[in-house]
């Protein structure tokens, strides 16, 4: 008899440890379910089309997911706190416009880049400030901010879009070949780095634990002595920073700042987050899930196109497959219960 039991401790017997360990891993790692769905989709399209499993095509899929994937990263933070950000893409678009217009005006490109990121951060600060100061529902605040920013971008752009020729602003689109074969862009590297940094921050630092706690049960977090408002504010600011980087990504991908762009970026990014297994009620989820979630949609689009399916039927198939993807996730978890 161990000391724990001597002290009146009840330890439960361990049974079937191998199966159980796997099930615990699945249950604890929200990204596993979506990852299975992703792999499933990739295998499906590889078998049904010749062109899908092609280094070029896979690279393209990743490039197509970069902007939404980056927006979704910031969105994940906000959703983890129990909020939602409808204005993320609008902040990103405003930042691209600012950068492009400054560049046209001849401002030095590092300054331009900083200004773009700064405006996204400022939006985050304002949003977070209003949300925390008045304890308003983030849905309404970011909806208001979305409306304002969209109009502001249009007024600021004056009905034009601005092609970007500056090297630094377009730098993330630069292509490189790994092993002389695999096409990668600097944007991919930056996105990956951002994901890793935020994964680390969320899982390995006190700040991350506070973010989860605030989303999980705000009152418990407050009573536990967490600076709830400060944590919330920091989340909106960090998310703003991420949206600033998304703006840089956007110019790398399409070197043209357009007030019209990414009108469905908010919904697309929320979709990636939810597909990635993060709960809209806050406190549960992971950025790795979001990464997978962002890729799933692009994989479906690309695969269905390769399969020669017309746009409207692609939509039907995408709708079905998105539901199937989460259902697979859910079923794989339920069996383990």
């Amino acid at each position, binding site marked *: 008899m161990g000391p724990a039991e001597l002290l009146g401790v009840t330890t439960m017997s*361990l049974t079937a440890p191998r199966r159980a360990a796997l099930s615990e891993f699945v249950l604890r790692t929200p990204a596993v379910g979506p990852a299975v769905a992703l792999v499933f989709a990739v295998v499906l399209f590889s078998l049904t089309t010749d062109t899908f499993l092609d280094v070029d095509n896979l690279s393209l899929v990743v490039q197509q997911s970069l902007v939404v994937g980056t927006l979704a990263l910031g969105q994940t933070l906000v959703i983890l706190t129990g909020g939602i950000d409808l204005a993320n893409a609008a902040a990103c678009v405003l930042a691209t416009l600012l950068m492009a217009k400054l560049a046209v005006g001849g401002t030095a490109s590092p300054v331009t880049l900083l200004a773009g990121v700064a405006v996204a951060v400022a939006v985050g600060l304002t949003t977070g400030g209003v949300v925390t100061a008045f304890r308003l529902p983030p849905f309404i605040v970011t909806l208001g901010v979305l409306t304002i920013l969209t109009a502001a971008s249009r007024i600021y752009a004056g009905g034009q879009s601005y092609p970007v020729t500056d090297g630094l602003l377009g730098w993330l689109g630069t292509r490189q070949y790994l092993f002389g074969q695999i096409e990668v862009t600097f944007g991919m590297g930056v996105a990956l780095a951002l994901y890793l940094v935020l994964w680390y921050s969320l899982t390995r630092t006190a700040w991350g634990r506070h973010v989860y706690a605030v989303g999980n049960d705000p009152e418990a977090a407050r009573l536990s002595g967490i600076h709830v408002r400060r944590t919330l504010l920091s989340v909106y600011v960090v998310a703003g920073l991420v949206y600033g980087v998304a703006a840089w990504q956007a110019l790398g991908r399409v070197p043209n700042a357009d007030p019209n762009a990414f009108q469905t970026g908010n919904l697309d990014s929320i979709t990636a987050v939810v597909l990635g297994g993060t709960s809209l009620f806050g406190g549960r989820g992971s950025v790795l899930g979001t990464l997978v979630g962002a890729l799933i949609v692009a994989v479906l689009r690309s695969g269905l196109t390769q399969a020669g399916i017309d746009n409207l039927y692609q939509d039907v198939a995408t709708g079905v497959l998105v539901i199937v993807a989460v259902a697979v996730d859910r079923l794989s978890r339920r069996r383990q219960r």
Partner: protein
Amino acid sequence: MTGVDGRDAPLEPVLSARALVKRFGRVTAIDGSDFDLMPGEVLAVVGDNGAGKSSLIKALSGALVPDEGEIRVDGRPVRFHGPLDARRHGIETVYQDLALAPAQDVASNLFLGRERRRPGVLGRVFRLLDTRGMRAEAERVLGELGIGVRSMSQPVETLSGGQRQGVAVARAAAFGTRVVIMDEPTAALGVAESAKVLDLIGRIRDRGLPVVLISHNMPHVFEIADRIHVHRLGRRVALVSPAERTMNEVVGLITGALRVGADGELEEVRDAVRTGLTRTGGGTAE
């Protein structure tokens, strides 16, 4: 496997279980447990924190579907897929977590899932709730328990811990028709309120309904229980009569300092005795 002690039961149990198992990942919360509730008795279920008492009664009330084992109601095997199935058999439960809808008011919670409608056309056709009637009834039931709630229209999330528990207890007491299960119903209650709940349990028994009472309060258990089911490490390790055993002995069984021997008598578990566990446990149990 389980040592049963005390009088033999000639009658068919109202609710019983054999070899129940429930695993959560690597934790086995119910590890082959048996259970028997006799007609008209108050059965106390006692055990350490984490022993698996709540998991056991959740299985018995349909809140949790066991992985293995069998449950019988009046001797007939049943399968509960949800709390509703158990409720249909007249099994009513106060869960440890109370299971109240926080934003809804006291009366709504008391009648949640079996609201009363107005008589006549209003109720039959227009499904109109008898809100006033339910409030009055709620007031009466809570008054009987000595639980003072200012207004039946106060959302339960604004109630004090004890008031909330009172609502949950009142609900089960009012609606049980075959078995009433209460998981630590007096944990948050004051002295007078606890006494009223014990009175209530007595009255339920007087109505002929058996009651399962989970409690850590030995004086309460010894005051009201007809038999005591001792739970340890996920299973029943003893079934004793409070008339024949002392609180100290029961505490010993709970902590594992004592066990039921092959002859049905209690015997000391050597290692445990050396740590003086019974002394600590016994000291506060009285």
